[in-house]
């Protein structure tokens, strides 16, 4: 009897424990040092020595950790989906210009505000307005890349097309920036640094709801995604509706990337690097295993990046986008040098 694919339970348990530990570390870090016991008491709503500690933990640090988990897992899942769909190990929301699309949406909203009516902009400047603009932007760029991908089969060409879309959106953003006021520019710039903080509980609930819709869509295409690993023609011959699978992948990816980018800014390399690291750890291509695995690993790595960005014991917070790039780029280089070739 052939054995069932080997059990991944232990690895999953290990990852979940790491996630829990790193979450606690993340919450305990910050400009105000809070004793560990008081931290726990705030979380379980016990008697805290200082009421301000409870506020810091519950209204600032906990939302930020939750945001990090959602951003990390969402971007990593998007990266995994892109890599399978484009059959390319270098695909990811950032490389394929999808994050740039989201940036364009936000840029048009913030920087193009002078061209829009004041009544629209008042609503538009809320985080929800940004989320809608970013999702539309990412969906448009992703569809454009996908249409190109249907015509151009060569994966290298698709990557270059993705890069070109990235350049195009960057160019449009510079033109918009040129005609914008200093305050608009500053607002956009801060958004583009990326930030996991500053989300209210209401916004986090919105983020979680949209994230859940994206994830729910993905769950239904786990099986067809596996068959796409050996190419569209084989997938078709096994009865898979390739068109539908591709559309669902596109919609969920742009939803996840768009919403996350809107609330947290464009965050590089998580979507590209985490799926590869996870595959090293789990040694499988089965999306049934990989999707949850990638989600947990992505959360862990995002929490680590955020903990580093806190600059422990200092009052400064570094832009999260810089940290993920500083960590992510060397990982990709290391993977390529070590294995000479990466498989998705």
């Amino acid at each position: 009897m052939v054995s069932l694919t080997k059990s991944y339970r232990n690895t999953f348990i290990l990852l979940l424990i790491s996630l829990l530990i790193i979450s606690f570390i993340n919450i305990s870090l910050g400009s105000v040092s809070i004793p560990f016991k008081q931290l726990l008491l705030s979380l379980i709503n016990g008697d805290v020595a200082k009421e301000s500690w409870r506020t810091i933990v519950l209204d600032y640090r906990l939302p930020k950790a939750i945001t990090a988990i959602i951003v990390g897992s969402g971007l990593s899942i998007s990266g995994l989906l892109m890599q399978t769909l484009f059959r390319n190990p270098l695909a990811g929301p950032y490389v394929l210009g999808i994050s740039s699309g989201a940036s364009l949406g936000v840029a048009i909203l913030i920087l193009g505000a002078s061209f829009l009516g004041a009544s629209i902009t008042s609503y538009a400047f809320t985080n929800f307005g940004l989320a809608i603009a970013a999702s539309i932007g990412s969906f448009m760029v992703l569809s454009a890349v996908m249409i190109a991908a249907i015509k151009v089969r060569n994966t290298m060409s698709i990557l270059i097309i993705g890069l070109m879309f990235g350049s195009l959106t960057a160019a449009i953003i510079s033109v918009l920036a040129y005609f914008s006021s200093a305050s608009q520019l500053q607002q956009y710039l801060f958004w583009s640094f990326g930030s996991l903080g500053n989300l209210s509980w209401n916004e986090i609930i919105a983020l979680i709801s949209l994230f859940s819709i994206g994830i729910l869509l993905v769950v239904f295409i786990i099986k067809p995604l596996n068959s796409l690993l050996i190419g569209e023609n084989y997938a078709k011959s096994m009865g898979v509706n390739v068109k539908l699978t591709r559309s669902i992948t596109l919609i969920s990816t742009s939803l996840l990337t768009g919403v996350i980018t809107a609330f947290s800014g464009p965050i590089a390399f998580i979507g590209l690097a985490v799926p590869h690291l996870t595959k090293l750890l789990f040694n499988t291509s089965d999306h049934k295993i990989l999707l949850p695995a990638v989600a947990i690993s992505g959360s862990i790595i995002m929490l680590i990046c955020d903990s580093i960005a806190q600059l422990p014991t200092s009052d400064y917070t570094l832009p999260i986008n810089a940290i993920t790039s500083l960590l992510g780029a060397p990982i990709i280089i290391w993977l390529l040098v070590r294995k000479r070739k990466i498989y998705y």
Partner: protein
Amino acid sequence: MKSMSKHILKVSNLSIGYTSKSEVKTIASNLNIELKAGNLVCLLGENGIGKSTLLRTLTKVQPTLNGEIVIDSTKLETYSYANLAKIVSLVLTERLPDSSLTVFELVALGRQPYTNWIGYLTTEDLQIIELAFEKTSTKHLMNSKCYELSDGQLQKVLIARALAQNTPIIVLDEPTAHLDLHHTINTFSLLKNLATDFQKTIIVSTHEVNLALQLADELWLMTPSKFISGKTSKLIKDNDIGHLFDSDLISYDKALNQFTIKHNSKN
């Protein structure tokens, strides 16, 4: 098991080709085939004559221009892709994408038409996968990555995947294109066994003409002028084989049952 007298594949008056916006490009027409289960069929013809187009049409990858295809007593166009996946499985000539899929995962994908929404493998699925490994003697490769395999091993594993799909018909597009003589013969004898011992209908497009003459139960010859299908022995007897290549350099030697280089001094 299917009744032996019934045709597993019946093609009448088929035209194949491509339709674009303005024109219809016919590649071959007036194709007629009657095929019973448990036969190894070799599809022979020059490069670019339309072998792949024919296989693509027979497997509903592209539409027919004219005529009718009946597979297992049902018209091809009435099959849903999900149902067709239980009747016909494919081994394609294209390279696999560079995934880190293991051999077991690849072969297990063959069970997709039968598994539930998330692809859970039941004991029955695992037994069928096991059998596919045994028939192709590839069980020792189970935990290897697909990209670690040699071309010969990969071909066997792809056939194992088709077997796991457990279809009465298996269609292979030039399965031995990248293989040396040893692995080519190996692959063909495996296909022959599958046809004889397991009543599979195996349709192979190939350039291994001499092997096809020795092993195939039926031949489909695609020549520029016409399409001929029939039992190998009959096509040899009727001298249809000789029309396969329109060339001054190759000729069919009936005594050897082989294609040979034509010597100018003779005839």
